[in-house]
Each structure stands twice: as structure tokens, then as C-alpha cells.
């Protein structure tokens, strides 16, 4: 804990990125004229990687009986020097009894992610182990695997078709875990994503569990270009429905600022306690 470092990622942006996936080279021996699925997935992987961001977010959890719970979160993110991993800090503003509770996450694309949690009632920072990507993200219907960008090569991808999705066209990409470990770790047997052909953002996703049963449905809306220089995009609203528990989580970003130069000490234990 003592030598814990200031590394964090804005969770909202992470969420937008979350649905990106990458492809194996061997998957892709595209025919002439067919887009290369690996290229699609690499672009999809990168499209949400913002240099840094600051946002206010509302998370609404709706259970099977329709009972709604609302959480307000303030969050910051920063891309790490490797250009892939992010640091993220999230501070809860409500409900009142968890106000001030904060998490600091540092992705390690090569291994387990680090998560630190500050509990104001305990006045201590505690470390959690989140080797498990299927664990719930902030108690929502999103899992860490949904929000923390997975490595492209962890999944085997197939471009099924291209079809219209709303006013745009989408690549429909099916991805299956490349190894038993990934399968177990994410809890998904298959993911199907609708990726816009113009900007590579995922607008819809369907996830099956390890037994092949439908598990979750994802959708993103209110897409906008957050960083036109780098061609990075974000979604204003995200929705995940767990088909098995019938729980729904809706996340909306109330205000988003990108490339604002989030100070490095935001991603520190001291900041969490503040």
C-alpha cells in the first residue's frame, strides 16, 4: 500500500472503450475487398483511448422488479505511456452513505489490474485483487471485462457480415475467447459486436455465457468525436442488460472534458482520501 502509485483511469471513458476487441492475425486472411477483421478490431480498440478526461457520470441500476438506484460519480482518466493502458479514479458523490468512497484502477494489459479503494468510514486505502474480469464493475451489470479494454489477441474474431445499424453501417464481429483462461476470466463464451464502419465504435453487443446461453445485451448511444486530432470517440449513454438476472445498468455522462491535462497527482492515494 505504501508504495502504491498514482495511476488511474477515468471510468466513464473506460466504459466507452470497454467494448473494443482485437483480433488474431491467423483469423484474418481476408478476401480482396473484405475488410481485415484484425484491422477493424485494432481500430475499435484504439478509438476510445483518450489522452485524458474528466467527467461526471450518473449510474442507474434497475433491478428485475424495476426498483432504481442511482449513483453519482466523478471520474478522471489518463492514458499511460504505453498508449494502451489507462489509469482511472472514480469518486462517489452519492448515495450519501458511500459518499467519498473512491477507487483507483490501473490497467496492466499484460497481467492483473491493480485496484485500490478508499473507504472514508475506515479512513484507509485498501487494495483489491481483480484478476477476475467477470466481476461486477462498481456493483453494476457491467463487468470489469466490459470496461477494461481487453487485448485484441485474447480473442479470436470473425467478421460475420456488414449490415445497417440505424443510420450507419456496422461490421458484425463474433469473438470467442482464444484460451480457456480468457474464457473463465471473462465469463463469456462468445461476444457479438456491431461496430460502426465509419468510426469503429461499438454501438451494440450481445454476450453469451460459458454454456452458450444469452447473458447480456449492450448498447451505446449519443456518440460524438471527443478528440478529432486523434480520431477518438465517446458515447454519452451506455446500457447493459443482464438477461439472466434481468438487471439493467444505465450510465450517462453529464459532462465530459477531454485533453484537459488532468494533474498526475489525481491518481494518488492522497487524492483518494481528499
Amino acid at each position, binding site marked *: 500500500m505504501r508504495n502504491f502509485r498514482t495511476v488511474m483511469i477515468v471510468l466513464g471513458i473506460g466504459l466507452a472503450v470497454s467494448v473494443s476487441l482485437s483480433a488474431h492475425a491467423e483469423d484474418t486472411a481476408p478476401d480482396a475487398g473484405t475488410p481485415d477483421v484484425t484491422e477493424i478490431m485494432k481500430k475499435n480498440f484504439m478509438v476510445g483511448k483518450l489522452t485524458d478526461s474528466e467527467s461526471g457520470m450518473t449510474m442507474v*441500476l434497475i433491478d428485475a422488479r424495476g426498483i432504481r438506484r442511482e449513483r453519482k460519480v466523478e471520474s478522471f482518466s489518463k492514458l499511460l505511456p504505453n498508449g494502451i493502458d489507462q489509469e482511472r479514479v472514480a469518486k462517489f458523490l452519492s448515495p450519501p452513505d458511500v459518499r467519498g468512497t473512491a477507487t483507483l484502477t490501473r490497467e496492466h494489459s499484460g497481467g492483473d489490474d491493480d485496484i485500490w479503494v478508499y473507504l472514508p468510514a475506515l479512513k484507509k486505502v485498501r*487494495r483489491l*485483487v481483480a484478476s477476475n474480469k467477470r466481476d461486477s464493475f462498481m456493483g453494476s451489470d457491467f463487468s470489469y471485462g466490459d470496461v477494461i479494454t481487453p487485448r485484441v489477441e485474447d480473442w479470436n474474431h470473425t467478421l460475420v457480415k456488414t449490415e445497417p445499424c440505424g443510420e450507419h453501417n456496422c461490421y458484425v464481429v463474433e469473438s470467442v475467447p482464444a484460451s480457456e483462461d480468457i474464457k*473463465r476470466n471473462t465469463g463469456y463464451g462468445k461476444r457479438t459486436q456491431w461496430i460502426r464502419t465509419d468510426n469503429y465504435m461499438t454501438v451494440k453487443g450481445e454476450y453469451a455465457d460459458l454454456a452458450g446461453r444469452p447473458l447480456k445485451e449492450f448498447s451505446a448511444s449519443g456518440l460524438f468525436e471527443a478528440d478529432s486530432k486523434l480520431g477518438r470517440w465517446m458515447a454519452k449513454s451506455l446500457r447493459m442488460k443482464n438477461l439472466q438476472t434481468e438487471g439493467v445498468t444505465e450510465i450517462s455522462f453529464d459532462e465530459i472534458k477531454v485533453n484537459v491535462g488532468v494533474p498526475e497527482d489525481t491518481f494518488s492515494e492522497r487524492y483518494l482520501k481528499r
Partner: protein
Amino acid sequence: MLRSYVEVIVRYRVAVVAILGVISVYLGVNLGNLHVEVDPDKNLPQGHPYIQAQNEIDDIFGGKNIALIGIAPKKGDIFQPIVLEKIQRITDNLLLVPGIIRANVLSISANRAKDILGTEDGMIVTPFMETVPATEREMQELKDKLFRNPLFANSIYSKDGRTAAILADFRFNPELPDFPSIHKAIEEVVQDERDDSVEIHYSGFPVAASWMAKYSERMAIYFIIAVIVIGLVHFEAFRTLQGLFLPLLTALLAVVWGLGLMGIVGIALDPFNATTPILILAVGAGHAVQILKRYYEEYAACQDNQTAVIESTIKVGTVMLTTGIIAALAFFSLMTFQTTTIRTFGLFTGLGILSVLVIEMTMIPALRAMLPAPKHKEAQAESAERKYLDGALEWLAPYVSGSGSKAIIGATVVALGAWGYGTSMVKIDNSLKPYFSPKDQFYQDDTWLNDRFAGTNSLLFVIDGKEPDKLKNPEVLKAMEGLQDLLGKQEAVGKTLSIVDFLKKMNKAMNADDPEFERIPDSQELIAQYLFLYSISGGPDDFDAYVTKTYDKAIIQTFMKKDNTAVADEIIRKVQDYIPKHFPPGYEVKIAGSVASADALNHVMVEGKIRNIAQIWLIVVVLASLVLRSLVAGLLVTVPLILAVFGEFAALGFFRANLDIGTSAILPMAVGIGADYALYFIFRLKEELRKSQAFDEALLSTMRTSGKAVFFVSSAITAGYLCLALSPFGFHRKLGLLVALAMVISSLGAITVLPALIKHVRPKAFFLKPKKDQ
């Protein structure tokens, strides 16, 4: 008027038989419309607070239909890949069953069963077993994880590590409508896993209820056996084929009519009424025998078939209509009850008795008029002296009318005293297990599981804070902890589990696993933050079985090794004493779960059935008094009935059989049949007394005729019901023995105690001046 009516029936006998035949066929066809209500909820007393609490929490926590599946390797402990793979497959496949409550599925491999480990840095929450350990090191890790979480000991693994269990909870739905379908779903999941390496057993309330339903279906077989036995006893009584078939025809047609009418009015039959057809059969046969006996008597006097039919129908018809209407009204009066099954019982039996009356007043006289007159041999065979029976009755009549009356009354008083003592020993307690025999698979499975785990029966305590976050209040959580301590001290309780256990574990984990901190934190904020912390490291749904996501309601799951409602009552009494002393104001603690549902049903059924008896008794007194024109006589008629009821209670008390849902249902049946003997006997006695003011003469001829018929009927019904004593199913045995006992007591009471009392009380209506013309 009655005479001309019977004459019309006899004159147009072919038409009457044809019309009645058509009606019977029509009603028989309507049996197809008879709906058997399998929805167990509909039979539960919906107004009872336990049932209301269960309904209220059912869609939140479930907990109504919890089943426990146990698996043990034949060699070694559960920490073998082959056993763990089976646990994983059973768990996964149970999750596919429609109606499974996912949040309540618990096993080593269930995702919500997690290890909470404290470290120097904080807390690690990981599922016990995501995949079956492949190496020895992984296997050891699993072992360590399980054994450092005693929270789950004796619920998903036995303390000795030799048995594992999977807990499942089901909610009824169109695809899983009843207990047998839950049972079937479980069996389908486990059957593929049964092999030489393991043994698998399962139990729980839905399984017990399913077995009971299965046994109830066998009632049909006993019904057929009862029909045959009753027929044979009648054949012995009359020694004629008419004597064998006619009463059975009435009885069977009455059952068909009763069921057919239920089909037409659209009232569903429920499993608790599976025994009711035998009651109608017995009542129907009883009336038919009285009338047939009188027919032979009249035939012997006049030697003319049609005259005998007319005379017997007129003479016994009045009595039959009176007794039948009294009984039917008594049963219909049960429709004022709230409990569906008691209403159905009243309606069904009432309709059955009315059917008997209609059939006996139309079809049977017509049919008998069509049949040839008894041949001389036949008539002789019928009236031939039954050496022992006639001898006994000839001896009994003067004994009762003479010196014996006081002895009989004295003996009755002594018997009542003894029975009163026996009654005081009756325990009101319902448990499904004693309904089964130790040889039954359910009994063995349930015993196997209760020997190894916390219990197959559930009692739930719902703590309702009414508003969100109220269940994060440390004061309440500490009160819950105290309640769990109290429950844990009860002998029948194997284990309790609630959010409190997880919070204590988290507090300890967040304090480097220091046992000092295995307690509820004092601050609500800290509690809220622990729960939040768990939700972001464990799963957001992991606590769904214990607390609502809004933290307004929580439950304490209590696993019990016994399902006795008396035990539950005792525990509930202690809990109700504890609640106001420890829970802050504004919180309500409600009781639910399978044991509570059975408890509610038991209370309502036992109290309801006892009120049934009182109501039937009262109606018999009122109507019999009116018809006999004597309140005293009306009261006397019910003496054999009171004796039968006390005799039944005493038998329950002396034989340590509980007054439960089953036995309490038997009592009003016994009363319903028993009243008829006394009514027939007293009407005949009254008739004879009008002929002759000499009590001894009147009693002797009553004894020879109606007394004999009472003996035939009661011996036939007793023999019919005793067939049930052969059943391996405990409830059927009790039903058989208790009804047989009631028949013996009420028939003996009718022919001994009743006349002895009449002799001494001398109701005015009975001792009028004899009519000159008779």
C-alpha cells in the same frame, strides 16, 4: 304425498331408470371437466400472517421451495475432480430449469459462493471454484478456501469434507406448475450423475410434497379395494346379489354425480380432498343398506315386490331424506370457511349426499321394481338367522332396556373420562416425515441429508425496515446477530445465515483477518462502504438471497433438521419474545419459509376442522331436534357422535399420533358418517315406540331391523377403510384406522348408549300414546 310419488316412480320405472341413466352418463362425461387444482398456493390459508409474509417476500427472496441435493463419493472426500465435476454440472444444469431462483442456487461451484480473505492490503473476494482444480495445489487451495469460510459449512459442504450439497430454490410458473414437476426437474438433473463412484440424495419441502402427491394418487387403488370389500361385506350381510350390487351402485353413482357436479360448477378438486370419494361411498352405501334391509323386511311381510319397494321407500325414505338433508346441510355449512380445501370438502360431500338421496329415491326403487322379486331361497338367505349377530342383538336389546342401561351409561362416563385424559395428551403438530415409512425413499434421503447438513427444512425471518438503507443500521444488524445466536441454540436448527455473517467476515477481512474484528461495525457508513466494497469486488447479486439491493428488507435463513410445526411454534414463540426487546422501533420481523407455511396450514386446518366438527354437530342438533320435535332427542342423537370424536382424540393421544393436517381432516368425515347411524336408529325406535309404548319391545324390534342394518353398514365401512391400513403411506394408515374406529364407536354408541339414554331421559316426543290405527 310420498306414497303417490313412489307409486309414480314404480309405475314408470323403465323411464325413470332411463332418465337417471342418461343423467348419470351426462354427469359421468362431466368428470372430464373436473379440474384438479394443483397450485399449492391456492390451498394455503392466504389470510394467515406467515403466508402473507411469504407471498410478500416471494418475488424478492423466494425461499418457499428449497431443495437440497447431497452428493458423496463412495470412497474418500469430495476433493476429487470426478465429484467436483458432478457438482459443477448439477449446479449449471439446475440453473437451466425454468423457475429456478438463480440467486438462491448455492454450491461450491455457484458463482455467488465466494471466499472472503483478509490480507495485509485489504480483502480478496474470489469464487470458491470457477473450474474444477486440475492439480493437487489447486485442490488444496479449494480445500483451504472452503474451510476458512465456516459460513458455508454444513450448507454446501459437510464439516468432514466427505459430502457436498447443492441448494436450489424454485418458483412455480406455467412450466413448473407443481411439486411433482419440481421433483421431476431435480431428478432429471441428477440422474445423469448417478454412478458407482458417488451416491446422490435429495430432499426438501417440494420433494416431500411431491411424494405425498404421488401417494395420494394411489388413493384410487384403495378406493377400488374399499368398493370391493364393502360389496363383499354387504353380500355376507344380505347373502343376495342385490345386496352386493345395489348399495354399491348407489354409492358409486353418488361419487360420479358428486364429481360430475363439481365439474359442471367448475369447482376444482384439491389433493386434500383425495379421500373424500371414500366418504361419499361410505355414506351412500349406508343409506342404501338401510333401505334395502327394510325392503327385504317388507317383502317378507307382504310377499309382493312392488308393494315392498313402495313400503320400504316410504318408511325409510322419510328417515333417509331427513338424515341425508341434515348431513348435506351440515357439510354445505362448511362453505362458510375461508380455506379453499375445507370449502371444497363441504361442497363435494354435500353434493355427494344429495346425489345419494336423489338416486335412492328415484333410480333404486325403479330398478328394484324392475328386478324380479327375491326368490324364496334368496329371501330366506337374507332373513336367515345370523347365529352370532342375531344372538348378540337379541341379547343386547333386553340388556339395554333392562338392567344394563345404567351399566352402559356408567361405562360410557368412565370411557369419556379416560378418553378425555387421552385427548389432553394430544399434541398439535404437523410433520411431513412421519407420513412416510422408514423404508420409503424420501424418508431415507431426508435422513441421509439431515445427518450430514444443517437441515432440509427452511424457516425464514424477514426483517422489514420499510425504507431503503434501514438494514444498514448497526443496531438492527446486531439485533439480527442476537436473533441468529438464539436460533442457533435451538436443537432443531442446524444453521442460520444472513447478511450479518457476511458483514462480520468482511470486517474481519478488512482488518487483516484479525478475529477480534469478526463483529458488526459500529458505524452505518462503514457498513454501507463494506457492502459497496464487496459489490465491486464480489458480485452485485451475491447477497440477493439475504438482503434487498435497496437494503430495506433482509432475511435470516434458518435451516432446520425437523419440519415439526410444534417445534417451529416453540422457536417462533421465543423469537416473538426476543423481537420487541432487541429490535428498534419501526422494524417488523415477519415469519415465512416452508416450515412456516406448513405451520400456518396446520393451524388453520386443525382449528378449522375442529370448528367443522362443532358446526356439523350444531346443525345436526338443530335439524334433528326439529324433525324429532324434541331438543332432548336432538341432543341425544349426537351422543354417539361426541363419543366417536372423543374416541378419536383419545386414540391420537394414547398412540402419540399428532393432530395434524391429515388427522384433523379425518375427524369431520367420521362425524359425518357417524351421525347417520344414530339418526336411523332413533327414527326407527321412535316409529316402534309409536306402535308400542313398551320400550323393551320397541327396542327389540328396532335392534332386529335398524340395529342390524347399522351393524351391516358400519362393518362394511370399517372393513373398507381398514384396507387403507395396508398402505405403506402413514397418512393412509391413520385414515383407515381412525375412520374404522369412529365407525365402531358411533355404531356401538347408536345401538347401546343412545337407547340407554332414551330409556332414562324419556324424551316426551318418543313416548306419545300409540296411535290407534297402528
